[in-house]
């Protein structure tokens, strides 16, 4: 067995600890910006982690994952707009609608494989995008402003930056713990087995698609939660948030961090969003640098950043 204290585990522990104490640093230095930035990073990390569950472990290249961010967000926004402000209603609805959407999309698109699967998930996400654009009552193209964040009966105040930050962090850690349990469970082994060799799994008695579909739904539901958080973070939802470029960004975050690595999406998201923040201070053409970087990672570091860290142990 590998040592518990290998490079990647140490980095993961440091990053996790850093995320926990970050609000303290922000309070001490009065740097509010870093807290806002990392709240956003944590929410996207949760979305990326959910994508990693199907992409990294399940081998399902979904190019429409931003749809769940939008669906979760719109569930919160629309309910708030219609006067239902309680998070106890908003959030379960956000999760349920995301799950339902994933169930329908999954049942249809999981009949296909490879490029066709990518294209179908993309097509459905674009449909969701245009439906959102067409909802004139809820702002249409311009999006929907959320005037009041979800309320949880005084338990927690989402308008308080630090409390909201910790809520997001709890969701992220909870989500990763859930994914960790899943990938090591009977269910998780079946899903990973199907990624590895579907024909073999069928031959030994597994109805592969049933397991893939459930995995797809779990992933979509977790991402719907990220959507509900994101809507509360920005006090705003718009169709732009579910555009295909957003789905692409989520994929890049997963690939940066390392597909099929439990904590990889978190590292990848931090890397991606910090770099974007940094580069956009110098130039508006930041994608010109991000692109080649992605190319380098795909060409020379298949396992992403987590894979690179893993090499230190052997090297």
């Amino acid at each position, binding site marked *: 067995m590998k040592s518990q204290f290998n490079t990647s585990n140490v980095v993961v522990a440091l990053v996790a600890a850093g995320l926990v104490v970050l609000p303290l640093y922000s309070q001490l230095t009065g740097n509010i910006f870093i807290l806002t930035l990392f709240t956003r990073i944590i929410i996207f990390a949760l979305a990326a982690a959910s994508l990693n569950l199907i992409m990294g472990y399940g081998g399902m290249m979904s190019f429409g994952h931003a749809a769940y961010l939008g669906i979760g967000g719109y569930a919160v926004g629309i309910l708030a707009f219609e006067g239902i402000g309680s998070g106890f209603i908003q959030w379960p609805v956000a999760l349920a609608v995301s799950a339902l959407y994933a169930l329908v999309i999954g049942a249809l698109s999981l009949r296909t494989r490879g490029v066709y699967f990518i294209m179908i998930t993309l097509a459905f996400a674009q449909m969701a995008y245009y439906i959102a654009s067409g909802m004139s009552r809820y702002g249409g193209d311009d999006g929907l402003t959320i005037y009041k964040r979800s309320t949880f009966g005084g338990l927690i105040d989402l308008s308080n930056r630090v409390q909201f930050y910790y809520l997001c962090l709890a969701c992220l850690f909870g989500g990763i713990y859930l994914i960790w*349990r899943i990938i090591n469970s009977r269910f998780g082994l079946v899903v990973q*087995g199907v990624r590895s060799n579907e024909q073999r799994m*069928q031959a030994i008695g597994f109805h592969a698609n049933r397991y893939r579909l459930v995995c797809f739904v779990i992933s979509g539901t977790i991402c719907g939660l990220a959507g509900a958080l994101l809507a509360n973070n920005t006090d705003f939802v718009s169709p732009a948030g579910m555009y295909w470029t957003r789905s692409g960004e989520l994929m890049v975050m997963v690939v940066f961090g390392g597909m099929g690595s439990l904590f990889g999406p978190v590292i990848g998201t931090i890397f991606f969003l910090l770099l974007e923040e940094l580069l956009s201070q110098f130039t508006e053409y930041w994608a010109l640098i991000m692109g080649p970087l992605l190319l380098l990672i795909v060409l020379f570091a298949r396992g992403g950043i987590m894979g690179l860290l893993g090499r230190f142990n052997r090297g």
Partner: protein
Amino acid sequence: MADPLLRVENLVRRFGGILATDNLSLDVIPGELHAIIGPNGAGKTTLISQLTGQLMPNSGTIHFGGRDVTALPSYRRSRLGLARSFQITSLLPDFTAADNVALAAQAHDGHSFRFWGNARKEKPLRDAAQAALTRVGLGARADVPVSELSHGEQRELELAVALATKPQLLLLDEPMAGLGVTESARMVALLKELRKEVTIVLVEHDMEAVFALADRITVLVYGRVIASGDPDAIRHNDEVKRAYLGDQHVVVAHG
């Protein structure tokens, strides 16, 4: 004669203009080792794939244990006790040998919608896997990833995976393919043991192995059965000699 465990009637499968399975009928009796031989392209693997459900026939029926399974998908047939090994090794390359076998055991232990407990720590599954691995001589290689196993070991693992599904009928598609002389001998010895417990359909090119193991042999040419009978009858069947054995007389003579 006992009721057949497997009964194939008038099976037809076309690929475009080619008849890969041409009105083929076949019975497999419980307890026998039934070998299917034939030159390359005779449609042996096509037949096996139709028996396991990876491929659907154009017409004809397949009965297994008295039940019509012609329309059942492969995962359902596996649950009824039909297991196969693949001619071209088909395992889960990024899993360990034990994982591969444990998953096969898991497939036959209720549904797998269990999301919480660590499946690698479930003792019954691990024990079943270890038993099947030991059976095929891989007991000491349980924790080795499949990609690091030798070709011979992978062939043995194929067999362990099939065994772990507790099959009634084992369909072996060229288990000796690509094996060296000693490895082949080990595989033959292993099959001699297994045939005492389970009915086997063996597709094999290695004539020596086939004539040493089989109770009955069916000869396939261009998707058709040209002869079926015990090894002696097949050895002396003129049509078989003409159509197939021709250049392999020597092997058969001392086999």
